[in-house]
């Protein structure tokens, strides 16, 4: 994928932002040296990019994250080194934003710097199989709420429609029209469809562009 200096991932909670952020970071690391993942989730104390902290360290990816993520301290806190995202222009950053408009409020803090620099993409991560975004209209509604909360306009859509381990290639294909509809109503491009790596080969000739995800979540 092609990356601007800042790649911001927003969406309904549980839409898959964190897994995409982790995989994008690995992809971006192959292209650039000085990169970071910024975890700005103030909503959910679980399933954070911090879970991949060791992997990041091994690959030389910096993690900008609250000290309290994935801990028992259930505080909506921001990283101490938050401003390096916007101050350090040599750094390329994948930003993982908390779910819904409530999560996006945290991003608003950086709005002025992000907009004046103008070197960002902000993607809406959508999953047609999530209960509160079952169709294009409801998804665009959530997009509007997120934009209002953070004050930053989206630049594209990422279709991450899945039903976890039970997802079939057909389940993904069935959501292509939905993602295009979201794009049409919002006037934004669908920049890619993301699928679990096990489905990549089956879909690579059918959906373009397709981005392969290795899931970080540990399942019981």
């Amino acid at each position: 994928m092609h990356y601007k200096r800042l790649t911001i991932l927003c969406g309904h909670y549980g839409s898959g932002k964190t897994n995409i952020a982790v995989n994008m970071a690995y992809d971006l690391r192959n292209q650039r040296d000085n990169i970071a993942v910024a975890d700005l989730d103030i909503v959910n104390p679980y399933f954070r990019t911090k879970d991949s902290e060791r992997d990041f360290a091994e690959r030389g990816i910096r993690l900008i994250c609250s000290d309290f993520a994935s801990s028992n301290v259930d505080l909506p806190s921001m990283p101490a080194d938050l401003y390096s995202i916007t101050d350090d222009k040599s750094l390329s950053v994948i930003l993982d934003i908390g779910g819904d408009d409530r999560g996006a409020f945290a991003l608003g803090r950086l709005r002025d710097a992000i907009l004046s620099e103008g070197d960002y993409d902000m993607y809406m991560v959508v999953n047609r199989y999530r209960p509160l975004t079952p169709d294009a209209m409801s998804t665009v509604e959530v997009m509007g709420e997120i934009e209002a909360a953070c004050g930053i306009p989206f630049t594209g859509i990422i279709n991450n429609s899945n039903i976890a381990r039970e997802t079939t290639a057909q389940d993904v294909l069935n959501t292509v029209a939905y993602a295009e509809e979201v794009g049409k109503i919002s006037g934004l491009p669908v920049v890619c469809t993301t699928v679990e790596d096990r489905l990549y080969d089956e879909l690579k000739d059918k959906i373009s562009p397709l981005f392969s995800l290795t899931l970080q979540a540990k399942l019981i």
Partner: protein
Amino acid sequence: MSDKILMKGNEAIAEAAIIAGCRHYFGYPITPQTEIAAYMAKKMPKIGGTFLQAESEIAAINMVYGVASAGKRVMTSSSSPGVSLKGEGLSYLAGSDLPSLIVNVQRGGPGLGGIQPSQSDYFQSTRGGGHGDYHMIVLAPASVQEMAELTVKGFELADAYRMTSMILADGTMGQMMEPVSLDIDVKPSPEKPWATTGTKMAREHNIVNSLSLVPEELEQLNFKRYERYKVIEENETMFEEYKVEDADIVLAAFGIAARVSKNAVDEARKMGIKAGLIRPITLWPFPKAPFKAAAGHAKAFISVELNMGQMIEDVLLATESKRPVTLCNRAGGMIPDPKQVLNSIIEVNGGIQ
């Protein structure tokens, strides 16, 4: 198109409650169940229901009391410390024979504890939680699908027996995402001639109350309530058995612990150890019969729990202590992994055969 959607356990509870006809939710946010309230906040206004964030857990449970008195399906949800606050209200609901659904997505304790998953409110849920002689029907889901199905079942049982049903989940169940089918049959709410819905000057007024001034009458109320509990024990006990028929070692586990235990049973079988699992789905009434039956052929039992050993007492009672029962556990928000459970099986079995 797949007929399944991807849901968090907490969302599944909220959506299933709506499917069951619940239009009144009162709660106060607490991790790890906040998504229930968040979901209700988004959904209820769109379907003509009530979502109200109360000023406290105590206020919320008393709002539940009010709606239940009026005969409508109603719920609240919280996590361990919040459920303790609701204790008085739970007792009043029981004393007034009111149907309601309470969700406890447990976290590590005691006290404020932590936000990681736990099953340490087993005693609180199955033995009362509030004061007085009473029970709640306690349902323990082990998948997101069951979070949805048992929520519907909980409302039905609550109405049928005029009492509180509790969904006793843990933080993992609340937070994990799995595919769910919401194609669930719902029994409509029965007639509630006792409800305080206004007499319209056409009948005597109904009274919903837990105060009783005459001890002889209060005793009779308790006797009658326990007759009802007996019917529930006979008719509503739910459990799942996994490879128990020929098992030498029978595990007892519910919720997330049962999923871990199932993996361990499979691993033990691969090693030639005949292991099995009884998974109580109702924690009250506790499924005594399958444990009693298993005690006939099993050599030993292992209770796998995310607490310091609470259900183990029910396993001892149900097996009438005919066989040794040992505990395999983690506490404070930690989950036993299949390896720990397997080691426990091997140890009890006297080493690898």
